[in-house]
């Protein structure tokens, strides 16, 4: 029963209708403004930054052509390599928790009643508030001086703790910041997916006597493949490229424990004014991002081939 529904709702992506097979011109007109904008304001600057990455740039003034020397310098820099590790740790933990929390919230609040609408609005507030202000407020709350941690942990017999002064708890703090802000984003995307699943499929499953758990694993999850893919890719790209959390909440510290690639790049480019080096890092980061997307998509293709 359910399988038939899957085919009509989700499976049409592969089929093409003759009616919509139009001439070669019209689709290009449809995508042209998009391509034009991306070419001018994204690809051209990207090309320029790639070009600049081959130069020694000091004081924002382009100096000698140095070839790949900036790239060699990056990969021989211990701190850059450490920032790659930090980026992966932060991104994976944040992704895991944000996705779980976001999915739970989406399932909880998917029904459109007054309570859900209200709760969704509340959960959305951290996402819509300026990241800068959000992280500043969170820093205030998490700092030892606020006394909140002592208040919560004191009764448990845990001695006074400097969350932001210790490498591992500082990492936990920025992961928390990420989850706090972006669970709403995951919730929204996943909820849009949940809502696109026709009710009759669930009704059919109910008639067939399927348990809630069974329905979730066998109907909801398979039908949610695309929304889940979109959510994961978007969140991961977002976490890998995050700057504000690190810059505002932890300043990349302590001892570099939360300095990710972007913060390292930002410091090199804007604080040290070493733009050539910064551009080289950003190009490496770009390749890193591409690799992430490729891995996720391949994982999905592989898992998609397993029989339902």
């Amino acid at each position, binding site marked *: 029963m359910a399988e038939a529904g899957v085919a009509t709702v989700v499976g049409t992506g592969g089929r093409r209708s003759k009616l919509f097979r139009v001439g070669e011109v019209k689709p290009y007109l449809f995508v042209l403004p998009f391509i034009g904008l991306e070419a001018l304001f994204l690809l051209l600057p990207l*090309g320029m930054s790639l070009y600049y990455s081959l130069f020694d740039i000091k004081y924002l003034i382009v100096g000698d052509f140095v070839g790949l020397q900036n790239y060699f310098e990056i990969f021989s820099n211990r701190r850059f390599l450490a920032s790659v590790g930090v980026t992966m740790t932060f991104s994976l933990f944040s992704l895991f928790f944000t996705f779980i929390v976001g999915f739970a919230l989406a399932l909880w609040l998917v029904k459109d009643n007054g309570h859900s609408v209200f709760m969704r609005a509340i959960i959305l507030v951290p996402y819509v508030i300026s990241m800068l202000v959000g992280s500043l407020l969170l820093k205030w709350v998490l700092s030892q001086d606020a006394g909140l941690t002592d208040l919560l942990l004191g009764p448990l017999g845990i001695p006074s703790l400097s969350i932001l*002064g210790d490498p591992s708890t500082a990492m936990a703090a920025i992961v928390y910041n990420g989850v706090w802000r972006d669970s709403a984003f995951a919730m929204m995307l996943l909820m849009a997916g949940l809502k696109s699943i026709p009710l009759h499929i669930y009704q059919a499953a109910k008639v067939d006597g399927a348990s809630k758990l069974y329905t979730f694993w066998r109907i909801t999850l398979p039908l949610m493949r695309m929304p889940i893919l979109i959510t994961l890719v978007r969140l991961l790209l977002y976490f890998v490229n995050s700057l504000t959390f690190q810059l505002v909440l932890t300043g990349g510290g302590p001892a570099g424990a939360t300095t990710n690639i972007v913060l390292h790049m930002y410091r090199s480019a804007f604080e040290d004014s070493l733009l050539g080096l910064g551009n080289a890092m950003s190009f490496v980061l770009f390749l890193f991002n591409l690799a992430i997307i490729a891995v996720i998509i391949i994982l999905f293709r592989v898992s998609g081939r397993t029989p339902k």
Partner: protein
Amino acid sequence: MGRYYARTLATVLAATCSLGAIAQANAGTVTMWTFLNPENTSGREVALRNVIEKYEANHPGVDIVVEPQDWATMTEKFVLSHSANRAPDIIWSAQDLGLLVNSGAVTSLNPYLADWLAENDDDLLFDNAYDNATYDGELMAVPLFPYSVLVFYRKDHFAQVGLTEDDLDTWDGFAAAVKKLQDAGLPGLLLPLSEDKPSSTIATTAYMDLNDGHLLAEGCVADFATDIGVQALTLQTDMIKSGLISQEAVARTNDDAWDLFIGGRGSIVPQTSARAGALLSSSDWANEETVGIVPWPSFTTDHHGPSVGASWQVSLWSGSQNKEEASDFMAFMASEEGAKEWAVTGEQLPLRASVANLPELSGGVFALNQAASEALNETGRFPRPGCAESSTMGDWNRAAQDVLLNGISPVDALQEATDSTNRRQ
């Protein structure tokens, strides 16, 4: 292939660069970028408005247009605007003058202000600020508000436990004072040690003291991984290990430490003297009876530790079409009339001897400014012109963090700080 690609890009680049790039020059209009907004109500901003109004009244036909900027990105944006040939005539800067000069974005003031400087030399205070703004004999900026990172302390807390400011003369006395405050249940020392927005610390001050007052050697060369470097860094890390400074310090920025001090959570904090006014207005306890400003400690009683001086200053865009008018206005901002506005209305350290003794400058914030002014004159060391020093403080903080949290030896940590600093020059 690679070469072809690079050449294509270069062509595109050149083509886009030739597209626009028309400098707009309206005769009689002088544009200025500053972090102050003359429409606002703080003392400094009112002072700027007054200075502009006075100048425009004396010079009909000249229009001073201020485009307020975000202070943190102003210098970089100015250099980029200079490359695009559309920068304002006058730019304010503090510690980034090197970037402006080295990028060629600002021009020498000698052709315009040499005579003015000669006439006013006797009255102008803070000679070091002028030295700091002079490159190869060319004056590249006119200093307006000098300031320095000094030690703020709570007079009331000190009195409670029988301490005086003399106890802060040496590092031993400093540590003992912090201990005494802590033992009495009073708040102690707030030291910001984050890599973000770094400023002078115990370690950098002690190092400068042991290194003839300089952070960097001639030619902007850093060499921190030495015995005196280790001595200075260890002085600071030992104070954290022994609990005189909270471990949370490694996460605190200058702003965080300052907010805690305003909130009454500290008895000693290093801070820029320019924030004295904000302290009085945003806390319910601070007044000239309860807060004082002293120079940094040193290892001996015969002198105080060095402080890093800096100044907000104004420079002239090298592409300006109005250099005469613009430089004339710059000189007016540092004239006796301008200096009076900055000192009295703006509550800044007085620029001129003739202003310093005005009767208006007494009590409240002016008392703190007086103390800061004396400390700056006695211990202020302005960085060597052209050296990129401000991020070096961050390198030292990173070294302290590495020693405390990553178990790296002080020498190795300082070697990394040395490399980071030298890479930037």
